[in-house]
Each structure stands twice: as C-alpha cells, then as structure tokens.
C-alpha cells in the first residue's frame, strides 16, 4: 500500500468499501427475509437486519373476555393482529405469524397478569428454523430434490472434467488439423443459451429414455462446461513443462501413469476452478431442470416452485434459497484452496 499517495489510498478505500457494500447489503436483506416471520415479511420499509425476538403488547378486553394482541414492529408502532381467548388459536397464530413456539396454556398463563395489571409487553424468542421446517413441509419432495441436486452435480463434474481435461490436454500437447477451429467452436457451444439446447435435447433424451433422469440433465449441464474446462485446462497444460513429463517417462512410467501422477496433479488448480464452474452451473440452474424433468426436480427447481405455489409465504422460499446456497458456499470454499494453490516459484 505504501506506494500509493493519500489521494490514491482514499479512492482505493472508497472503491473497496463500495464493493463490500455491494456484496453485503443484498446478502443481509436476503438473510433478513429468510429469518422473517409471517408478519415481518410484509413490513415496509424493510430493515437489513433480522430480529431474534418478537415483542407483543397484550391487552385484556373485558367486554368480550378476549386478549387483544398487538405486535410491535421495528419502527415501534403497534399493529393489531388477533383478538382471542382460545389458547389453541393463540398458539397456532403465534407459530404461524410470529414463528414463536409456545403452547396455548403457557400463553394464557403469561397473559393472565394483564387482567389485573392492565396492558403489558411480552418478548418471545423466535424459532429461527421455523421457515426451514415449513419449507420442507410445503415442498413435499424437497429432500428428494436435494438428493437429485447432489447426484446431478456429481455427474456434471465427472463428465465435464473427464472429457474437458482430456480435450484440453490434446489441445495443449498435440498438433492436428483444424485445431484452432475446434477450440473456437468449443467457445461457441458455451454461448448457446441453455433454454435453446434444452428443448431439442428433451426430444433426444426422451428417445434414449433419459428424460426426467439426472444423467440426462447432467449431459445438458456438461455441454458448456466441457468447453470451458477444455479452455481452462489447456492453458495450464501448455504451461506445464514437457521435461517434467519426459522425466517421468525416463524414470519408469508409461504415458498413462505420467498423465495421472505428474500432469494431472499439476493441473489441479485448473481442475478445481473448472469443477467449481460445473458445480455452480448444475446446482443453480432451474430453467433446464424445468424443461427436462417431470417428477424428479432439483433443489433449485423446488425452491422456484415454492415461490410459485406460496405467494403469501415468501419467507419459506427465502429459507429454501438459504438451503440452496449453503452447499454451494461450502464447495466453493473447499475448492478455492486448490485454485489458489500454485506451486511456489517453480515454473509449471
């Protein structure tokens, strides 16, 4: 940093903080939604922070012998929510709209005091996992979808890394006719919109009895990723000195052993980066899954359907999205270690 003067430092700091804000703010709103209860989700304006507790003001209405429950929102106003004397009704309402898990008897005994002392405020802890529980309840096939997603990701990585790294190696090491054209063509495949390929592919997959299977879906996801993997790995393979492979050949390995034990480990950063792209393509896609599956949706598709089915309970879909994010986060962070792992100052 010392090579920058104060003005440059300030500009640099401003840019960096803008980047941080641009990443953090949407993330915070996202989390705030996912952890909102049924009432908070419709609050306006939204705050980027989620609350751990719910505060209600309870008044005892003598004429109807009911408790009037008013929820305190973030700006401090009270909103009338429910008037009731039934413990069951109160308990159900609290669970559904406040994400507070408390039995009817407990609530009634809490509120008893308002009969003598007048209106009182009560603060309850929200059950933070309520939305997640509800997400799995309303999307009946969510756990199956999670399994499907993992399977399709696994297939996609296997297919695109095997074929992609092989073609990348060929691009880097061998001279053959139309090599440039082929490598450009690979990029063109990458440009196809997936929807465009999905529909004709659906017809083919039905013919091969692969429609609505994960392997069929993985084939579609692999198409652009084979091209990408081939590009990424070939640039790394070019950088790997031939002498390293030749040394292995002289010291007793055949060419297959050399590829597995010498070339591939050194291309690990490229493979890690490619597998990350493959993972993200397969994990986040909804539109192709929508076209190519029928009864076996992936998790991303399940979340999408949860939004479509529950326009009133968006927080459940938001919770589903969190479930969708976590494996992607974990995978990316694990793989990132290898992407950054270059072998010191030794030229590859």
């Amino acid at each position: 940093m010392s090579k920058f003067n104060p003005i440059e430092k300030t500009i640099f700091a401003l840019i960096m903080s803008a980047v941080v804000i641009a990443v953090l703010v949407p993330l915070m709103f996202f989390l705030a939604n996912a952890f909102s209860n049924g009432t908070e989700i419709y609050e306006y304006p939204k705050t980027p922070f989620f609350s751990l507790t719910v505060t209600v003001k309870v008044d005892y209405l003598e004429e109807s012998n009911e408790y009037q429950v008013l929820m305190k929102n973030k700006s401090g106003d009270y909103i009338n929510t429910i008037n009731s004397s039934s413990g069951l009704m109160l308990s159900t309402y609290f669970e559904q709209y406040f994400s507070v898990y408390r039995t009817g008897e407990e609530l009634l005994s809490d509120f008893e005091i308002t009969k003598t002392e007048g209106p009182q405020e009560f603060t309850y802890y929200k059950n933070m996992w309520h939305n997640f529980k509800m997400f799995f309840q309303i999307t009946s096939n969510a756990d199956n979808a999670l399994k499907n997603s993992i399977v399709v990701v696994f297939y996609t990585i296997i297919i695109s890394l095997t074929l992609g790294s092989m073609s990348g190696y060929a691009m880097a090491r061998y001279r053959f006719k139309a090599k440039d054209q082929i490598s450009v063509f690979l990029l063109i495949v990458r440009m196809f919109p997936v929807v465009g390929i999905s529909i004709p592919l659906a017809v083919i997959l039905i013919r091969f009895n692969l429609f609505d299977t994960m392997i069929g879906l993985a084939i579609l996801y692999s198409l652009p990723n084979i091209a990408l993997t081939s590009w990424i790995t070939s640039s790394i393979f070019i950088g790997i000195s031939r002498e390293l492979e030749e040394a292995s050949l002289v010291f007793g390995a055949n060419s297959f052993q050399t590829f597995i034990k010498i070339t591939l480990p050194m291309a690990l950063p490229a493979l890690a980066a490619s597998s990350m792209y493959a993972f993200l393509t397969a994990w986040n896609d909804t539109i192709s899954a929508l076209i190519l599956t029928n009864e076996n949706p992936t998790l991303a598709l399940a979340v999408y359907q949860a939004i479509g089915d529950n326009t009133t309970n968006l927080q459940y879909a938001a919770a589903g999205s969190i479930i969708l994010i976590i494996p992607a986060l974990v995978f990316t962070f694990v793989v990132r270690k290898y992407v950054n792992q270059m072998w010191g100052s030794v030229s590859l």
Partner: protein
Amino acid sequence: MSFIELINLDKRYSAKGNLIVNQMNLKIEQGEFIVFLGPSGCGKTTTIRMISGLEDISGGDITVDGNSIVSLAPKDRGVSMIFQSYAVWPHMTVYENIAYPLRLKHMKKDERDVKVKLAAEKTNIGDYLTRYPSQLSGGQRQRVAVARAMVVEPKIFLMDEPLSNLDAMLRVSMRSELKNIHETLNATTIFVTHDQAEAMSLADRIVIMKDGIIQQIGTPKQVYYDCETVFVASFIGTPPANFFKVHLEEIKNQLHAKNELVDYILNDEERVLVKDYLNQEVIMGIRPENIEINTTKRVPEGFLFEAKADFVEPQGSHIIVIINQHNNVVKVSSPLLDLEPKTKIFLNVKEHRVMFFDPITEKRIRKV
C-alpha cells in the same frame, strides 16, 4: 564389442526436413564419461534424446550391449537422465521425487527408504527431504535431480546441459561433484554441453558436433592440440586457434608458407606432410600459447612475422596480445606480463606446432 553403439544414426523432424543428426557413428565403452560438445542447434541434445527414447530415430540403429534399443520405451532402456530445467516435479516433496522411480518398480517401502536416504546423503540434500522444490534453491533442485537419477542405478547416465542454469560458482562445484558421482557409480555417462570448460574438465572423451555431423572424437588433449577440422580448432580454446590462409612456395630450397603477413619456413617433417599442396593454398592453425613473443631479436627458427602489439589484455597469470594487421587478427597468449602495447615484437612458432588444414574441406592434412 562396445557398450553403446550408434550406427549410422539419422534424425529429421519432418519427412523432407533437414537432417538434424547426420550419419552418426559412435562407440562408447562401459564406464566412459563422454561429452557431446557443440554450438546450439548442432544436434547434441537430439542425440541423447534419441538414446533415452524420448525422440524417435529416422534411420540407423542404437545398440546397448549388442542389443538394439530403438523399439523400447524410455522406461525399458535402463537409462536415467538429468534435464536442463532439472525437471523436478513441483507437486512432490524431495523425498517423493527421489522415490518416484522406485515406487514405479514396486520396491518395498523400507528398501526404498534406505536407497532414497543414501542418494540424498550422497548429494547433500538429506536435510531437505520433506521440502517442496519451490522451497529449494537452484543448486539444491539440481541435486534432487541428480539424486533421483542416481537412485535407479542406471546402466547409462544421460545429462542434458545440467549445469547451464546454475550460476558460475555453483557450476564449477557441481561439475566436480558430478565427476565424483561418476567415479563412484562408474555408470556410462553421456553429458551434453556447449561449454568447453565443462567438457574439458569432465570428459574421458569429447565428441564435437556441428550441424549434426561429428567433427572429432577424442580426449580433451587430443581435441585441443590435435584438431581434426578448422571448426574444432576455432571452437575449442579461449581464445581459439589463429588461422592463416597461406600460399606454399619453394624459394631457395626452402618451403615458405606466405601471405601478406606471414612468412613461415617449414621444417622437413612439415614439408613431407604438405607435399601435395605445393604452390597451392592451405590453412595454417596455431594455438595462441604455441606462439612465442620475442621483444628483442628475430629468431629464424619458426619465425612467423614481426609486428606491433595492438592491444594487451592482462589475464592475471598471463597476457593476451592482440595483433590486428592486414586483415589478420592474431591472438597470442604470453607470459610476458610487462609487455606494453605498441611495442615491436617478433613472433615465432614454438617447436613447429602448426596444424595444416585443407582450404576446401577444412580437414586436417595428415600423413598418408
């Protein structure tokens, strides 16, 4: 029968391309230290790559112990190699690097362990076995490459300019270590270099190549004092030999080798040698240290010419005198440390140590 034989070896990279190695014939005895020496692009590296099997051959044959090895894969040829860029695998520790050839032979772990440690000890890298190559200096990486090549106990050791990436000091010390290793292992070694000092100090025999053709095969002394071609005489030695294009003419019963600068009277032995070239041109080659400088008087025996010393380059133990006259640049190595530039000097050939070359073929004129 020789241990390694190269028989009419040819190499071209494309069907109609130039011959990179042209009809090469060479016999190497067991335990010999052979150095391939030549300017870059002369085919020396290609030749050892053909011996190692990394390069196909276009014609001829290579035999080891009488058996042709050209159809064998590199791993089955019993060779081990040290590469110019060391070729130490960066994703393996030093130990793994050295153990790799043994692991491929399915050697038992404890046996392997002993061998790796021994090789590491011999090359002074015993303390670095757990490190990665990126944590080592260039010289240490070179030692790893040497240890790895040693551990397989090869029949043939191939070294492809292994010292060219090291700095000058390390190069000299590694040089003597390689020589030492060769002496202890006694494996047949082929060493490629373009550095004549390396070649001179290491080799039992030097093979000097140019444009894919062997110019001379001989001991360091032979290739220096008994050059086969003009190329060898000009390539070896710092400064290289001095050349004079001279005309042979008989004057008063004496054979003179004359040009605009030189007038050298041949002795009887030399007269017999060049008798076919009377009244023709030949090339005279004289090593810089075979020319004697006289500051005071003209000595008739072996007299070359008299001139003024144009430049004097002190080298510590001796000086190099440079004379630039009549388009001839003559460099003379002399022990006269106090010689001043621009002094008049008389030059003589010591003991008639002159090499005569044919001006067309540039080959040495020898007794028939």
